[in-house]
């Protein structure tokens, strides 16, 4: 029977705060993929694709949704759930992945 065994717990000092911010963006951004998933060949979706947007464009759109500067049906309700810094990190992450 195969078992995984954990080594001693890492000391708190090894926590890399940059890695932490990166992972936080994943935790949020994974939830965007339900709707903004990779586009399937041959299927046209009415949900706008984020594939051709820069990080800056995604970030600006999210801030505009959050502060009610961009009319929309759904995104303002979602964008208000995150800090400006979180939205910037998510935009950055989505652009890279």
């Amino acid at each position, binding site marked *: 029977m195969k078992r995984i065994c954990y080594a001693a717990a890492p000391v708190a000092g090894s926590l890399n705060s940059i890695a932490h911010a990166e992972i936080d963006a994943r935790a949020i951004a994974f*939830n965007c993929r339900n709707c*903004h998933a990779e586009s399937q060949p041959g299927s046209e979706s009415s949900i706008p694709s984020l594939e051709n947007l820069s990080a800056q464009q995604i970030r600006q759109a999210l801030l505009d949704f959050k502060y009610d500067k961009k009319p929309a*049906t759904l995104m303002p*309700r979602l964008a208000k759930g995150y800090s400006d810094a979180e939205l910037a990190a998510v935009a950055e992450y989505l652009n890279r992945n």
Partner: protein
Amino acid sequence: MAGLSRRRFLQGVAGLGAGVLSGCAGLPICAGSKAHVVVVGGGFGGATAAKYLRLLDANIRVTLIEPKVKYITCPGSNWLFAGLSNLDQLTVDYQSLQDRYGVKLLVDRVSSLDAAQRRLRLTGGRSVTYDRLIMSPGIDFRWDAIAGYDQAAAEQFPHAWQAGPQTLLLARQLQAMPDGGVVLIAVPADPYRCPPGPYERASMMAYWLKQHKPRSKILILDAKRSFSKQALFEAGWAKHYGYGTANSLIEWHSLADNPLLELNKQSRVLTSEFGDRFRGNVLNIIPPQTAAQIALQHGLTDSSGWCPVRPLTGESLFDEFIHVIGDAAHYAPIPKSAFAANSEAKACALAVTSLINQKPVVEPHWLNTCYSLIAPEHGVSVAGVYKLDAANTIVPVKGAGGVSVRTDVEAVALEADYTRAVYRSLITDTFG
């Protein structure tokens, strides 16, 4: 923020510490072997968890156990009553999970669980061991809630709350009903799978009846005082189905203080505590629900019938190596939806890979969006963004979420479009 993260980090480590003890106590050292995560249930929660585990860490072996070769989605199944969909269009399989992500699929049912040995027995005779187990087995019904309504009665009076033959049975009954007939939809108290589901169903049935049997009526007999997206549904029903007038195709009755107690199968009558009698031609009885049998049988539920978890990781309160997600688990205030099951699965997959790789567990984020069709060109939605508060309980983020704001013709048509698009992309993200 920093303080919060640090505390969570320490909690993650504390969980690990316990893992070291019970995981390796008395067992030989086996460093270097690949961790094995077993996922039970190939619905929205389980399929998403299996896929994202492999995306996050290809070194983890992932086995998905699901008895059905194909899965029929409940989302979209109400559209069938309006003639807008069929079961084929709602059917998905597990090919991509295997081919694209390397998930190992076992087409089998878990018959028992030995938590001490971290071993599952399958109906087919096999046994499977795990390092961590993720359960997303969905729901079962409380058959004792309405006297006379049991599993056998459901073959005559469908719940259609698990998509498949039950959905077809209900659709056929609706089609066979005489014009001027009455459809009863009995709706349970919270919590249950898909809070807006019964009202979307009534809408879709009304859309079909309006064209084919316009003298008919749908009576919603509700154990609740109010319901999800109520103002939006009622406005839509008024617009399309005469709601609020004598000729309305839909009537909603709250029976919060006067619950339905009994079904008389011969006379097709539901009787309430105060003796009110509701007779129908078609009876769609949606019973109260619990976590699926496998969770009930193995002590993963509390007195509510659902599985309590630590939301940070999804670990069961009763077993640290078993995570529970989806409808079976208690993630309130997050509703029981496919979208939420998908979101819970991602947070859980992140936590499980962190635990296995001895990394701090990151702050989870959950999202829920539920779209419903009131008519083919009239969609409405409700959304929620959820986080942990300082006491590690799940809270909706204040100021975010809520129901559709614009209700003009253009906006509801756009939301109807999004209803279908979100369904398709959720399928792609989960199974594709």
